[in-house]
């Protein structure tokens, strides 16, 4: 294994790490940066628990080699939470809506669900229920609470519009 220096932007901050480029972004985030919000489910791109944004697009971090994120913008669930904190709230309105809609049961799929729908709302602030379902079609919830998740995202869309929420450091390009 040949380690390389990999510099990228993580949740709005420039970071640099010396690592095996064949390490997955998921393990890089969890083991090097101690960002444990991103979950490992299947580890093979089939469950979406590890979803993060790379340059504003939802991807399975378990499938992304660390070498690929050099020079790119990576955004995780911790970045979403920080947006809420910066606004004086406890969490982001999307996370708030998940909690209030009962969209969190065991919680393991939740960070991935939030990231997929966060990407959706950045691109499309007024999604239809079908568009929400499409956006979470790569995220499995084994508690099977999809309906509440859909409701949470639609509710969050309303709130974000009402609050004129700006995504200031969302990693969107």
């Amino acid at each position, binding site marked *: 294994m040949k380690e390389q220096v990999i510099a990228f932007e993580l949740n709005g901050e420039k970071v640099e790490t010396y690592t095996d480029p064949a390490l997955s972004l998921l393990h890089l985030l969890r083991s090097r940066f101690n960002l444990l919000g991103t979950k490992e489910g299947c580890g093979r*791109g089939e469950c979406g628990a590890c979803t993060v944004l790379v340059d504003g697009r939802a991807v*399975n971090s378990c499938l992304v080699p660390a070498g690929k994120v050099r020079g790119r913008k990576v955004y995780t669930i911790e970045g979403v939470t920080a947006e809420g904190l910066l606004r004086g709230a406890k969490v982001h309105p999307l996370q708030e809506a998940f909690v209030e809609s009962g969209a969190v049961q065991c919680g393991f799929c939740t960070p991935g669900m939030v990231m997929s729908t966060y990407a959706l709302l950045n691109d499309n602030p007024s999604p239809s229920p079908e568009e929400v379902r499409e956006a979470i*079609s790569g995220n499995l919830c084994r508690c099977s609470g999809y309906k509440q998740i859909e409701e949470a995202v639609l509710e969050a869309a309303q709130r974000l519009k009402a609050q004129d929420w700006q995504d200031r450091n969302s990693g969107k390009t």
Partner: protein
Amino acid sequence: MSYTVVSNLDQAVEALAKSEGKARVVAGATDLFLGNLPPELVDISTVPDLLGINRDPDYLSVGAGVTHARAAASPEIRLKAEALAEACREVGSPQVRNMGTLGGNVVNAAPAADAAVALVALGAKAVLVDLNGVYREAAVEDLYANYNLSVVDSSSEILLRFLLGPTVRGEGSAFLRFAPRGALSLPLVNAAARVRLKGNTIEAVRAVIAPVSPAPTRLSETEKLLLGSKPAQDTWRRVEYTAAAEVDVRGSMLRCSAEYRHHLIGVLARRMIRKALERALESKEGGDGR
């Protein structure tokens, strides 16, 4: 392992040449961790030459590095290569479509890769370049050596783009798949067709089905049945019967029994050809310049 992200084609060729056969080209990398890791990787996903979607009078050129998400959303592809847009919408999940590329879909050589099936139905040609700078073109269906094995040697050749004749007035294409679930699901059968009408007569047809062999496979008997015919009520039962009878399929634990696959092939063949024909008719009647 070394991982080099190159920013242009010269760098890619140079990196491959320097590694003397040890390095492999990678783009979306969505299947990278599912197999054995090669010792060196050359990431070509940001090479500008591979990212274009361009139209000239004769061809629609789609870069091999175009992601499924981009292809599915491209107005040019949706209008001129509808089957490809439909296929790209069905690949994996949104996360996979955001990373996975059309070139990878073909060179990875999975026997039921959605985009590859549509590309073959559309008659797409692949443009490749080797380390000596020699270009070649090949039909997409000729790029398969065996199951999950491409003719393209990704240590010494780079797939650059696909060229496809855009559908013209009187032409239509369609893609369909049947899978146990609506997303994140391997297809039991996928199918794509392209047809051209002259009056009410089928003047050209390409009907493709997978997975029945290493490459997306043309239904040549079904095509013969349709070519020169005017589709009528009794056509569809014959299409279903002919398509199901002309391919040899096995049952598999991964997908389904051979009997069920035969049934699905007949049904999907009928549906995709009807859908392509409907679109061909619409394009004749519509004034949208197709």
